[in-house]
């Protein structure tokens, strides 16, 4: 497509036909009224004309629809902005290879839930072999050595263990947010690390949890914050970007 085409429409079988296909369920018994409702929804989604090709009852109260139709919307490519991740997403193989080449030893990650937080869901999703969202956790990576300290780890204990294991990175999960516990714990943790290590030798400090604000890493004294839905692969890629690139 040449650059002069800044306006595009979906492609069915002819340029500019705008054809799309959608499927959805309405909480209605399968009858003429439900079909009318489905067509109304399609129209409101910009599909006109809309062709209702399939309606099927799913139990007495729900109906499943498949609708084909032409959408009236145009996409203006000049308005599309792409948010670039500052580091590339790597496969497990690429992560292992990068570590092997650059560090020439295993990358050591120490992980824990600190304070009173007993929710190991997050840290386990990232670290344990089982992983999250179909991706294996960091334990799966041959070139990463994972030390998962589990729940309710005290900050001094975490610092001591990180030193003993010569951790390259420390991963901390904070789920509980009562009275901003996650923020206090994180600040306390980063302060303890900066006190215990000579400047410039502090391991990479990474926190994760569903309630951190993006962009608050610096104010909390950590290197990176990961939010809800982060997968192990993203974390591994980030570690490589920071430590083995």
């Amino acid at each position, binding site marked *: 497509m040449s650059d002069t085409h800044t306006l595009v429409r979906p492609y069915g079988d002819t340029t500019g036909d705008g054809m799309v296909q959608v499927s959805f369920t309405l909480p209605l018994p399968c009858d003429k009224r439900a079909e009318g409702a489905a067509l109304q929804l399609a129209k409101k989604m910009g599909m006109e004309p809309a062709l209702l090709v399939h309606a099927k009852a799913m139990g007495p109260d729900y109906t499943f629809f498949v609708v084909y139709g032409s959408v009236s919307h145009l996409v203006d490519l000049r308005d599309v902005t792409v948010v670039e991740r500052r580091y590339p997403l790597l496969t497990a193989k690429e992560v292992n290879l990068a570590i092997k080449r650059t560090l020439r030893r295993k990358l050591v990650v120490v992980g824990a839930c600190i304070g009173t937080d007993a929710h190991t869901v997050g840290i386990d999703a990232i670290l344990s*072999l089982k992983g999250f969202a179909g991706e294996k956790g960091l334990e799966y990576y041959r070139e990463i050595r994972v030390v998962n300290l589990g729940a309710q780890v005290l900050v001094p204990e975490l610092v001591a263990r990180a030193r003993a294991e010569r951790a390259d990175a420390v991963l901390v999960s904070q789920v509980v947010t009562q009275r901003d516990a996650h923020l206090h714990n994180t600040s306390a943790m980063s302060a303890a690390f900066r006190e215990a290590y000579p400047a410039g030798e502090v391991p990479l400090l990474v926190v994760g949890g569903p309630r951190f604000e993006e962009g608050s890493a610096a104010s909390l004294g950590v290197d990176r914050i990961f939010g809800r839905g982060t997968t192990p692969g993203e974390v591994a890629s980030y570690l490589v970007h920071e430590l083995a690139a």
Partner: protein
Amino acid sequence: MTWVLSRTTSGSRYSGRVPTTTRPRLELDPLVVRRARSLARQAGRPVVRLAQRHTTVSVERATLRLAGLSGADHERVPWVNHLVEAVRGQVGLECGVTTPVWDALRRGEAEDLLTLAQKAASDSISFRLPTGPELTRSRRAARAAVATGIRTVDRQRAARERLVRRLGDPKQRPWIYLIVATGDIDEDIPQAQAAAREGADVIAVIRSTGQSLLDYVPEGATHEGYAGTYATQENFRRMRAALDETSKEVGRYVRLTNYASGLCMPEIATLAGLERLDMMLNDSMYGILFRDINPVRTFVDQRFSRQIHARAGIIINTGEDNYLTTADAVDAAHTVTVSQLLNEYFAKEAGLQDWQLGLGHAFEINPDLPDSFRLELAHALLARTLFPDAPLKWMPPTKHMTGDVFRGYLLDGFFNLVGAMTGQGILLVGMMTEAVVTPFLSDRDLALQNARYVLTAAGGLTEDFHPPRDGFIQTRAREVLGESVQLLERIVDDGLLDAIGDGTFGLMRRPADRGKGLEGVLEKAEGYDNPAVTLLEEGRST
């Protein structure tokens, strides 16, 4: 039920056995098969002995649950945890929790078990290890109390058998297995009932992420879980009652499944027996490999939980599918077979019968690989042939589900076809939105249509499908069996615990002196007594 399948499996409902005349032939060398089983026995026996020499805090808590102790304090710490900790702190658990507990009751330290636990929690009971006639009487009292729980388990099993007789089993094999998981038991119930009406024969309530690492069983009805619902006695009771209603409505007994795994495996198994769950996920090595639970803890806990399952008439489901999500499904095919053989040995040692062995395997070969479907057929048929009387659990693709839901739907169709052609016992219905979203209502409906179509159209293929002698499928099956024997030989030489420590399964290294829950493992002393184990092993109820 809105659909009826034409295939009839005359009179062999429980066993999942395809009639002999129509069973596909793999022509495995019976000597090799025997050798594989004998190696599995050799590998497993030292581990069983190890399990017999130890107890765990969870085994002791499960025993107290059988004696009727339930409930939790205001901080939701269960009374069984309080009591076991109190006894452990004062006299240790090496002789079992029941002797000091019933000694204290006989001495009148509290009027009943619950009060004793409550007082023990505030440190106002002094426990001791009785001797002589007092020891005998304490043990007798403990046995009588624990026997009431065993009798409840027996009654629940009889109730299931009665309901199955009255309402009937599913008309087809494999049984259709569907997962429900909202996190809120009150949301799970209508979803499970709807799924049963749409044709599900088995409902699995998936557990909240992280429950496996809790060293206590949460109490009461729960409404918040992460990607699943907590396994609690009350949640079990509510869901079973709801499915009993639906079973009557649809005219077949709808089975309920949960997870006896993690640090509280023995207690959850016990609760399942008490509340008439019908199937339990219960793998011998899953917790070790995928949850980093201490190997000794796991083997002790799984032996007790399997003894309970055996008694309760519960079908166990093993987790071999998980190996294939970490390792390559072709290269690691034999690790599945090895794990199945080990699971079979541990299960039978604990008293489970063939019809209770839902040994797992999965459709996880990369679809881009040439002959991937033929390889799947060979592997599935190998499992079917090795375990002819077990209701094998056939698990759908997950690793190669990409987000292209249309392609995923086709893969699930081929998965269903392998299930139909090879006579699998339990079929976990695959969702085309696997790894995309929590299944929509419509995803589940489409998935059931897929399974229904394939089973109706091709369910009878077990009759026609005979892979030719020395053809691709027979050769591949023999190859996998041969590799399994080799791996088992290595395991026997190294010892199973060392093999696990070296990363033989699922590529994970798990040494026997590490992992979670190790502090809850105790070596039994000379005077150890556990009336639950005695009753289970003797097969008695008083």
